[in-house]
């Protein structure tokens, strides 16, 4: 029972409390490059999710056989293997999306989020915990990708998942689907997260002060 709770805790940690994008600011390159629509964000998120899960499982199984000195290279080769699998299966199953994402699927290898989880978590924990961690982090990354993609798509073309939202008088805010829009949207989102954090800290401090008085 206690173990189950721990695994659940690891999952929630990745999804929200230590969200890889909004809190740790990792994995920015694929995040900004492909999120000009929610569908692309979803596809990229699922691809990264699969790579993260697969390599977490493999690394945590092999952790006792990988020599410490060359561990980073081993992690990268394991990740690259999974990315190749994803790349080829996506090309076969969904050629349109594969073409949209283009060179950014192979670039999942360089996502510092994935390598970071291997080094910081999967190579030090049991299989069970690593799977929970990979699920949480993967879901957190997926959430960020879809959120960013949705915001940019709504403002940039007035659609969400390809469904038109506004009437014919809507004038699309084109800059949002171009590169600058990505930077600025993420900047504003981080600002929002900072603000929420600051407000929470203030309330915590106030509560602590009141406790002291009582």
């Amino acid at each position: 029972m206690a173990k189950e709770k721990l695994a659940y805790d690891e999952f929630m940690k990745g999804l929200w409390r230590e969200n890889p994008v909004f809190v740790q600011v990792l994995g920015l390159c694929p995040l900004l490059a492909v999120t000009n629509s929610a569908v692309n964000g979803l596809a990229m998120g699922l691809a990264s999710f699969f790579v993260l899960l697969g390599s977490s499982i493999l690394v945590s199984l092999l952790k006792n056989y990988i020599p410490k000195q060359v561990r980073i290279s081993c992690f990268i080769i394991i990740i690259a293997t999974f990315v190749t699998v994803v790349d080829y299966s996506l090309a076969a199953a969904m050629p349109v999306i594969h073409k949209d994402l283009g060179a950014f699927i192979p670039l999942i290898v360089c996502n510092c989020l994935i390598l970071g989880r291997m080094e910081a978590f999967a190579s030090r924990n049991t299989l069970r915990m690593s799977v929970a961690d990979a699920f949480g982090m993967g879901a957190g990354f997926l959430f960020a990708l879809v959120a960013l993609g949705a915001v940019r798509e709504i403002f940039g073309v007035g659609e969400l998942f390809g469904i038109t939202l506004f009437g014919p008088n809507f004038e699309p805010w084109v800059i949002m689907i171009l590169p600058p829009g990505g930077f600025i949207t993420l900047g504003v989102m981080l600002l929002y997260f900072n603000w929420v954090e600051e407000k929470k800290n203030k309330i915590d401090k106030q509560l602590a002060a009141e406790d002291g008085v009582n």
Partner: protein
Amino acid sequence: MGDLGWIFISTLLINNFVLAYFLGLCPFLGVSNKLEVSFRLGLATIFVMVVTALCAWILNTYVLIYAPYLRLISFIVVIASVVQLIEMVIKKLSPTLFRALGIFLPLITTNCAILGLAIFATNKGYGLWEGLVYALGAGMGFTLAIVLMAGIRQEVEGANEMPRLIRGFAFNLIISGILSMAFMGFAGLFSSS
């Protein structure tokens, strides 16, 4: 202007790796707080990129035609090892140069701009010279972007009026957005594309 010159200008300004393709954002946002350091990082990146283009061309021409599915793994492994090797050689031959580039070389190898360069050059079917010029343009574009960014950040962080809430990553991203918008102005530079 010749074909090579066109490739150079277009990767340097129009399709800038950082500001248009979002490659190499980690060093761009992480190491851009000092002007001098970011300039040296840029130089080291140019160097690694040219080496990468050479490696990628050799691999593509002689090895990967037999096993295209190994492309990703072999790119990563070969580029990382060659950079490591060159680092050792530089350390032996020129300690000054090593001190200038040294600590950055291994870091740069895992930068997504490097792998992105190799993959883009392959996808575009560039030959040896085109690949090298492409690498030079991409590297100098990266240097330009990171030096501009470092300059702006140094100025801004000297000013104390900034609200505490916006400092840090959020603000850097918004500056990058504005820089990226400025670079979009180059998009009409050539009509031939």
